[in-house]
Structures are given as C-alpha cells and as structure tokens.
C-alpha cells in the first residue's frame, strides 16, 4: 500500500509549529507566585503534544487516503474564498452600506449557477439583484436599527463625509 505523503507533510507542519511555539514560549517571563509554573507551561504542553504527534505522523504516516477535492473543486473553493476576501475588503473600504447589498448580489448570482439551472442568465441576474437589495435592507434594519450595532463605516465613506 502507498504511504500517505499528505500525512507526512502534516507531521512536518505539526513539528514545525511545535518548535516555533516552544521558541516563542521561552521568551515569556515567569511569574513571581510560588508554585506557579508561569505563562509558558500551557503553550508548551500544546507544543509537546504537536511535536510527539508530528513525529508519529512522519514515522508512521499510514496509508494513502481518498482525494479531498479535485482540481476543479479546488478552483471553485478558491473562487468563493476570493469572494470572502472581497467582502472583507469592501467592508473596509466602502463600509456596511456599500458592501452588504453588492456582495449579497454577487454571491447570490454566483451560487445561483448551481441551484437555478433551469433559469436564463438574465433571470438569475434579476433575481440576485432583487435579493441583494431586499436582503441588504433587511440586514440594515436588523443590525443597525434593531440591534443598534456599530457596523463598519468604511474608510472611503468616512473620507467622503469629511
């Protein structure tokens, strides 16, 4: 049976993190309380666990497992993840009012390619647009009016206001 390279890589990553945590923990100052092992004890426990398990993974990686995602699936994954990053960026720049309806529209349109296969591109576009606007209003009412939450204003919006 073929040994799992993936598990070996996990072992090396785990060992690497353990060594890094150990190095970082050594820089933490001890406490003056009698009997207290100090703030470094707990992260060191985590590091020891990861180091031991990492070594086990390197030495005995086990058998090769089934494919997690295909190349195409990884591409889809990256596509949606880029939307997550775009959402964060839009929230930072444009704030809640700009980011929410825009992103709701974009993500809904993107996902509708899976579940609205019987609809034309134009129909999907219109549905997503309506959902983006209505959803944006609902979220605004919920967060800003009902929950009285302080949502991001966006640096561009703040600059425009000034």
């Amino acid at each position: 049976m073929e040994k799992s390279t993936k598990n070996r890589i996990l072992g090396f990553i785990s060992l690497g993190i353990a060594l890094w945590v150990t190095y970082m923990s050594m820089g933490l100052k001890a406490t003056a309380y009698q009997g207290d092992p100090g703030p470094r004890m707990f992260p060191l426990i985590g590091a020891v666990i990861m180091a031991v398990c990492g070594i086990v993974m390197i030495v005995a990686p086990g058998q090769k497992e089934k494919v997690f995602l295909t190349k195409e699936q990884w591409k889809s994954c990256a596509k949606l993840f880029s939307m997550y990053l775009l959402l964060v960026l839009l929230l930072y720049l444009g704030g809640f009012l700009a980011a929410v309806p825009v992103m709701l529209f974009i993500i809904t349109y993107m996902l509708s390619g899976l579940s609205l296969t019987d609809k034309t591109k134009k129909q999907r576009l219109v549905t997503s647009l309506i959902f983006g606007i209505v959803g944006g209003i609902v979220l605004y009412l919920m967060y800003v009016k009902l929950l009285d939450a302080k949502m991001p204003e966006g640096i561009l919006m703040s600059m425009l206001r000034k």
Partner: protein
Amino acid sequence: MSVWQFFLNALKEICTPTGILFVVGGTLAGMILGAIPGLGSSTLMVILLPISYKMDITMAMALFISITIGGMSGGCIGSILLGIPGTSSSMVTVFDGYEFTKRGMPSKALSAAVVSNFLGNVPSVILAIVACKAVAAWAVKLGPWEYAALCFCAVLMVVGLSKGNMVKSMIGVGLAIFLASVGEDPINASGRFLFFGRLEFLDGFNIISVMLGLFAAKIILLEYARQDKQQNQLDVKVEGFKFPAADFIKNKWLILRAWVTGAVIGFLPGLGGPVASVMSYSNEKMLAKDKSTWGHGEIGGVFAAETANNAAIGGALIPLLALGIPGDAAAVQFIAALNVQGINVGPMFMREQPAIVYMIFTGALLSGTIVFLFQTFGMKTFPAMLKIPYHFLYSMVILLAFLGAYMSTNSFYGLLVAVCCCVLGVLMDFFGIPSLPFLMAYILSPMLELNIRRGLNYSPRGIAEFFRRPLSCTFIILGIAVLIYGFISPVLKKKMGKK
C-alpha cells in the same frame, strides 16, 4: 426559590411575544436547517452567537435550545425523503427510512421518526432535570484539582472515543491549546504571543469568530466546491401523519433500549447524537431475530436511530449544566454564548444561574412538544423544506457570518480571525483533523489552564496533589485509559479479524 417557581418564571418569560417568537421560530428554523443536508442547525446557532450578545441571556438560551431540538428532529426529513442525512445524527436513518420512500411509503417512516423524536428528547430532558441537580450538588465540592482533571478527562475522552485518526485528533488538541494560549495570561494578566506587537491579540482569538470561520464559512466553501446541491431533486408526495400504533407496540422494548443508549452516550463528552444513533442501530440490528430486513426498510431501524439521537440531547445537558463540560458541538455553542455575556460555566453554574438553567429545561420541553405538533400536523410540508433555494440561503449565511465576526469584536480583527479560521478549517479537513476535539480543547483550555495553575499554587505538594485526591486521580486515569483504549482497540480488532 423552589424548582417549580423557576419553571413558572421561565414559562412566563416564554409566554411573551419575544419568547414565543424565539421558541417557536427557533424550533422551526432549526428543523428546516436540520432537514437540509449540509448546513445543519449548528450553522444557524453559530451565526446567531454574535447577535445573542444583544439579547437577554435567558431568552438567548431558550432560542439556542429550541434550535438544537428542532435541528435534531429535522435531520430525519432529509434522510427519509432524499436519502441524504440532514445532520450526521440522522445518518443511519437513511438505511431503512429511505427504503420506505423508494417504495412510495415515506409517511410510514416519517411518522415513526416523529414519534421517536418526541419519545427520545422529552423524557431525556426530564432525566436531565433530575440528574443535573444531583450532579451539581456533588460538583460544587470539586476543587481546582478535580476540575482540572475533569476537563483533562473530557478532552481525552473526545479524542479516545471519536472516530478517525487519533494522532490527528491530538494534533488538533495541541493546536487548540496553543491558539487558546494567545492573549492574556489567566493568572498574572500579562500578554502572551502578541504577534507583531498588536494589542488586539491581548483578547485572544474570540471563540465566536473562530466558530464562524471554522463552521459557517468553511462549510459553505466546501459545499460550493463539491457542488452537491444541484443533484438534490425531490419529487415525493407525503401524506399526513398516521400514528404507527402496531409498529410502536412491536418495537416498545427496542425504543426503550435506544433511549437508554442515547441518554448514556449523550452524557459522554464528544460523542453526541451521531454516535448514539449508530450504536443504537448496530445494537438493535445485532439483537434482531431477522437481520436480513435491516437496511431494506425495517421500521425498527428508524425507531432505533431517531430515538437514540434525540435522547442524546438530554444526556448532553447533564455535563453541560452541572459541570460546565460540553458534550457535543451544540453544547460548545451554549458555552460560547454564555461566555459572550460574561457568564462562566462551571460546577457553580446551576447554583449561580438557576434562571438560565431552568429556561433551558423549559425551552427544551416546549420545543420538543412544538416539534411533535408541527411534525404531526405539518408533515405534508416536509418536501417543501428541502426545496429552499440554496443560493439565497448560503449567500445570506455568508453575510451573517462575516458581519457577526465583525460585531463580536467591533473591529476588523474579528473578521480577519474568522477568515483565517476558515482557512484553518479547510486545512484541517484536508489533513483529516477532526474539528470536534479541536473545538473541545479550545473551549476547555482556559478553564483547564486556570485550574491546573490554581491547583499548583494552592498546594505545597505541587503536581502530586492531582494524584493524591481520589476523584482527581480517577478522572486522570479514566481519561488516559480511554485514550489508550482508542489507540489499541483498532489494532486489537485487526488482530482478532485476522484470527
């Protein structure tokens, strides 16, 4: 105040427009999300966590328990009608439940599942009410040594009893311990691992942002990548509920055994509904006179799986409310919601916060009844639940998750933590690291560290004190024994199989 007075107060609070909305709405929303394969009610709870900060904590708990019960009861709908489990707890319901749908008799399996849901969860909540009081009375006597040992035991039990590669589970635990160490030291309040000198790290990684990234954002990412949703075409007609009297009488002892199995497994940390249903199904199949019918449309299979997974809810409430130890992922979310409001869950929780505890019990009993009534009278609407357009639901969940992450810290720090945790979640899935041991260790780490260090401070004997105290020593030995069992049992099974 007497127990009845707490129940009456909780009932009074629920009988307000907000209370009714929370309990009825939470139950139905949980049931719908529980029915839809992929999302699950836990996603709803995660996205509600940041909002719960603005709610009255007792009402938030009523909402959360309603979602949990609704979600568990809704899981069988996807299993029976689509052949795809709505939640992992209803995985084995597919084996026999879906066979009835193929034969054109989905109502028979659904009716059995509805009865099982009610018989599973309501009596188990009553058991929790009785048992919690006794366990909590005992728990207040625990010192930091026993409590640290209990947390240690709980984490090791999750690793030892969970399925999959245990070494990978332990890597998850180690990683969780490290990530939980970031921030303020619990004893002297000095900063630990303040990366790039940023003071934001003093607050550590907010559990809400961690869960939003690790669950909501990651789940949708992987669901979209795998693109399973387009295949779920449903064309089934469901008739109304018919009480399965003959099947019920025939399977009365099976139901009782499944209930006991579920309640006991629910009590053990980290197992919950999925393991309860699998174990109960396997037991009953083993005990059955005619095993050939199991997996080909045996109604006992539906009773066994659904009674056990619902009974696990009450079982999991006992360690959660009496000891502050989460039994499953849903219980972790309860603790996170309480922590958000500055309430620490531990052995003193029942004594200090009885209003919250009895609200959870009352909410659970009411929610169980609402589920039963809705599923009895609204069975014909089940197929409609599975036709909810995913693109609307998923895009809304993504927005709610990220806005919630922002709200949890009121800064972009929370958002970035959620994005990073989403990546971490995908990597963990890629490498096969189970998320439950990671999550359990992450939520229990602060309590574990605090109590270990208090134990070491309070006693001149240092670490030896943990082994001198009978209870503490028992928990440590039990935890290690379960871990060792988890390591050697697959080897033993392999050897026995060869012989």
